[in-house]
């Protein structure tokens, strides 16, 4: 029964991917991509990776979807790029199928029993006082990756801002939707945003011991921020705003500060003070959640339009 479910899910995933690749119309392709992301989230649940499922749905499908839809709206309806030669189509199809077949064979040929780090993590996890092993890997055992990935996120915002017409990258990004906001948007923002913020904070709080954590929470909070912007409840901030920049830096540099503090408290960079591991880890998570939420929201809003003329 569950095998049947998996098979149907795999076929739907494949159909979704083919739909994205084969659809000529940009908007339809993006909408198909969002649906594909939701299906992928289901696949992650079936693979017993609920943390990944939440991330995929929130970031891989949700926020990416918004970014791509904005992109479609800003592009001219008729792209100027000519389509590749249709005669190449069979060749490309053959190459792709060959790659897929070889890769499928490689996956089936992976050794049995599968090598795994699960036992190592299980041995080391109790010392951190965390219940969620994925959070443990992200914030303790491989904290360097997570720290640097925060820098990647910040850098991609810098890259987006650098595309502003204003060489100093100042001012407010263009509005997301019509102004003034339609009444239902405003209503939705007023009613849903508080609930959504609560959900985001719950995901963060639960992340220490259950599926959830900084990314998932940050994505939900970013979505609520965008909802408030679309409903005209808050104004889009200017990029040079000092408070905004502090929020952007809080995550990566708060994390870095904790890393340096590890030298004093645990004798090693990115070590946590013995006895107070969980408290410090949660503090780091709060800081990076704040930064993730603000950064994701600003990335969706896009480059600033330059200083306003007063």
């Amino acid at each position: 029964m569950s095998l049947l479910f998996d098979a149907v899910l795999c076929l739907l995933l494949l159909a979704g991917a083919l739909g994205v690749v084969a659809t000529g119309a940009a908007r339809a392709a993006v909408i198909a991509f969002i649906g594909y992301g939701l299906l992928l989230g289901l696949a992650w649940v079936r693979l017993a990776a609920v943390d990944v499922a939440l991330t995929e749905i929130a970031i891989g499908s949700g926020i990416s979807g918004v970014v791509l839809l904005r992109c479609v709206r800003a592009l001219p309806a008729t792209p100027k790029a000519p389509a590749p030669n249709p005669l190449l189509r069979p060749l490309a199809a053959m190459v792709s199928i060959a790659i897929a077949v070889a890769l499928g064979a490689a996956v089936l040929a992976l050794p049995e029993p599968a090598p795994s780090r699960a036992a190592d993590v299980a041995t080391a996890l109790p010392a951190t006082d965390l219940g969620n092993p994925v959070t443990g890997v992200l914030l303790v055992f491989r904290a360097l990756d997570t720290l640097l990935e925060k820098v990647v996120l910040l850098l991609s915002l810098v890259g987006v801002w650098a595309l502003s017409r204003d060489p100093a990258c100042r001012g407010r990004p263009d509005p997301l939707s019509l102004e003034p906001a339609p009444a239902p948007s405003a209503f939705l923002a007023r009613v849903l945003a508080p609930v959504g913020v609560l959900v985001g904070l719950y995901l963060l709080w639960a992340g220490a011991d259950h599926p959830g954590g900084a990314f998932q929470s940050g994505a939900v909070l970013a979505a609520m921020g965008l909802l408030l912007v679309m409903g005209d409840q808050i104004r889009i901030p200017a990029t040079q705003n000092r408070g905004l920049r502090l929020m952007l830096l809080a995550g990566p540099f708060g994390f870095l500060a904790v890393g340096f503090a590890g030298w004093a408290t645990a004798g090693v960079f990115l070590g946590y003070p013995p006895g107070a591991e969980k408290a410090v880890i949660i503090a780091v998570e709060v800081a990076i959640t704040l930064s993730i939420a603000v950064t994701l929201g600003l990335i969706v809003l896009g480059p600033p339009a330059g200083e306003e003329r007063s």
Partner: protein
Amino acid sequence: MTGVHLFGLAGAALVGCGVYGLLMAPGALGRILAFNILGGGVFLIFGVVARRGAGAGFGADPVPQALVITGIVVAFCATALAAALLVRLSAVDAEVARDGEKEKET
């Protein structure tokens, strides 16, 4: 054949779809989408690796799960940067075209 194998094969097929899209997409947006499909396939294969490594009381090896979460965020950053570049490029192209027409008129 188990469900895990099925997802492994689906991941391989998604990679194939992504490669096809990268090769044949008519515009940059199509390539960005194809890159995401390709990335999704790679992550799914990693998920299969994680699920196969279940043990010590965990439903799946937590290390690959954490790496995939990092990977998804990095892929999002790439998508966002590429989309922003594309939007700016089309705006600048439109400006250049408009200026060209104006010059022709005068």
